[in-house]
């Protein structure tokens, strides 16, 4: 967590923590496995009232942040959600809301943003494509112009919250280059198939676009001008992922240290064995490092600093690589109980592995870091 919080930020964090603890404790997260959406709409609206959806939206468009630094505020919420493996479409809804706030016409923003802000509706960002790196030039979903309409063809997968979303922000290769469209999930020609997934409550879908016709008014930003927004969307998603991963991993490390004090073997606490103490020391290094780089990345993206693109990918590469390993180590240190369904460890592992692989994996992140370094 950021070590320099304003009192308003502390309040935001504490309120979120309390709300999550009372409404979606881990027992409830387990129970939500049976819920097709993985979360309750009414619950999400209450979260929206606490600020979960408005922090990246300009005040002039109905949003507002706590500290004047909305992404830093939102990262605090993401961390709390990670610590409790909370449900809810935090990343896609915020990415879409931010994009609409910055790029959409007044008409489109007026139509869609109020619902997203109040939590009455939910949005998904259709970016990833099967087997392709998530880069602007990696998009095979095509948008061609037919009269004054665009026609979309292709497939997006995995799409976070894709089955639940009311609105879809689609990143496509248009006639003029990278272009984004906002369409209702009820648009004809869409085939939305829920996917099975690791995480118990965060769901993904595959969305096929067959001759999906959208009006020119559905374009967000200019036709062919979406590269900068795309980069901003990726950066936002990566920051929120890292924050969730760090929140989750910090919690697991914490209760694993406690376990080492509480459980004994051969008449001694586990925490007294040097072989284990050294592993805990390494883990302490990793968790502090993961937190440090996440905070740096959050601040860099918030400030739009020139090296933000690189730092945020450095964060993703490190955090998404190291933290799942760290949690696996914690499982090892729990012994047999660690690999049971009953123990909560796997809930955390599921979440961080989901984040490891989506919106670009560590291998892709490292590759982009090297490319950026060479520029």
């Amino acid at each position, binding site marked *: 967590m950021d*070590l320099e919080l304003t009192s308003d930020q502390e309040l935001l964090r504490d309120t979120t923590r309390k709300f999550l603890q009372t409404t979606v404790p881990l027992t409830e997260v387990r129970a939500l496995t049976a819920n097709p959406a993985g979360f309750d709409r009414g619950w999400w609206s209450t979260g929206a009232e606490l600020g979960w959806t408005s922090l990246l939206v300009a005040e002039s468009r109905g949003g507002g942040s706590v500290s004047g630094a909305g992404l830093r505020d939102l990262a605090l919420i993401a961390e709390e959600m990670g610590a409790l493996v909370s449900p809810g479409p935090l990343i896609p809804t915020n990415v879409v809301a931010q994009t609409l706030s910055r790029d959409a016409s007044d008409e489109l923003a007026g139509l869609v943003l109020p619902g997203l802000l109040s939590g009455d509706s939910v949005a998904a960002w259709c970016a990833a494509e099967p087997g392709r790196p998530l880069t602007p030039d990696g998009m095979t979903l095509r948008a061609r112009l037919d009269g004054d309409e665009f026609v979309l063809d292709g497939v997006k997968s995995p799409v976070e919250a894709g089955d639940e979303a009311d609105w879809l922000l689609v990143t496509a290769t248009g006639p003029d280059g990278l272009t984004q469209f906002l369409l209702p999930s009820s648009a004809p020609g869409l085939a939305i198939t829920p996917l099975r997934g690791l995480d118990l409550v965060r769901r993904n879908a595959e969305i096929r676009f067959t001759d999906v016709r959208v009006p020119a008014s559905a374009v967000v930003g200019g036709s062919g001008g979406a590269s900068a927004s795309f980069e901003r969307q990726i950066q936002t998603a990566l920051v929120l992922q890292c924050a969730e991963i760090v929140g989750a991993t910090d919690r697991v490390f914490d209760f694993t240290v406690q376990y080492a004090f509480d459980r004994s073997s051969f008449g001694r606490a586990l925490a007294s064995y040097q072989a284990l103490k050294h592993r805990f020391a390494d883990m302490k*290094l990793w968790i502090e490092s993961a937190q440090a780089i996440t905070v740096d990345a959050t601040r860099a993206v918030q400030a739009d600093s020139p090296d933000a693109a690189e730092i945020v990918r450095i964060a993703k590469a490190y955090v998404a690589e190291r933290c799942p390993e760290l949690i696996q180590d914690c499982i090892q240190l729990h012994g047999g109980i660690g690999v049971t369904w009953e123990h909560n460890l796997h809930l955390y592992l599921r979440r961080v592995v989901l984040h490891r692989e989506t919106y670009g994996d560590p291998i892709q992140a490292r590759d982009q*870091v*090297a490319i950026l370094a060479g520029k």
Partner: protein
Amino acid sequence: MTEAPTASGEPREDLDAFRTRAKEWVTANLQPLNGADPALGHATDDADHVIRVKAIQRKIWDAGFAGLCYPAEYGGQGLPAAYQDAFIEVSYGYELPRLFNTPTFTIILPTILDFGTEEQKKRFIPAALKGEELWVQFLSEPTGGSDLAGALTRAERDGDEFVLNGSKIWSTYAWKSDYALCVARTDWDVPKHRGLSVLIVKVHQPGITITQIKHVDGTEEFCQEFFDDVRIPARDVLGQVNDGWNVASRLLLHEREAVSGSSPYAMAPRTAARENDQVGAAALAQVSGGADDPRVRQLIGEARVLTRVHTALVGRIATSIRTGRLPATAGSIPRLSNGVMRVRLATIAIDIAGDRAVAWHDGDPVGELGVAYLGRQGVCIGGGTLEITRNIISERVLGMPREHAEDLDRPFREVRTNTPTQRNRS
């Protein structure tokens, strides 16, 4: 991590003005490195090196940029660490007197500030800042380095003097140095931590024999010293007699800061990031056409990730210690990070270089990467091994039970020790 003592009141000059002035001075007065080894600069041989760094440090002193974070009453500038950072930033890529950084500026002088008498501080701190005196650490012994409190080198009181006998080893640059801090046993009848003293020792004086030890990379910076009835004035004890462990522990704290790249007193990049950020490796890859190779790109990416994360960690831990979120012993976390990171960087470098790192044309710098790989573990040993570092983190940061020790409550005389290496006098 140590907060550099700040000046009483506001700094005379704001940070931006300072930076501009420093930049002008550096550009006009220091030599660009232009590919020279940052540690050695433009020195042509080892002896020349000492003369050269002392001259450069003197220049820095004369210009008022020496000891930026040291108190003004001892010759420093009494500025906050941000000024130090600014100086480092503008002098990056220029030849700096790095030999002074470790241990003189980052370890020894801070310890003298902590424990020295007024007289000692006035005598030694300005002299070092002026570039007149280099320091070395006489800590490790042939019988053991990790167990520093198990020192067997003895100092016996004789009137106004102490008489030193024994041997120290692995001291870096001892032969180039002027003074040493030396841990010696002054009482054998109390438990080990209570019978030590720290002495200020003039390195080149009767009774001290220095031999150089060849390092795996071929250099001979390592030394062993033999003490035969070396006489040291009693006023040159740092701190109290028999309270040496207290002094040494603080020294180790400063050392961990120095080794992790987070000391506010270094006149060179505080973190490894810039020196090590593998732009070098990237350039190397270009040479072999490797930057287009996805395998090489992974390695370059990984190197940049490691160095940038380390930089972030150093900042976070410093803030954590300053604000009390973590105890001062958490300085061991960046120390561990530094060791682990540099080991990996050495491997990455040789992986990128491939067979050119093991068989190379005379003068091809790629060969140095192979040599560096051979000495890779040095960064995990010097300044306390990573095993000891992990003990500190688990025991003093996470609060886990300490390892069982056989020697804590017994008079040191009765404790099992390694047989001291006898000096061959023939």
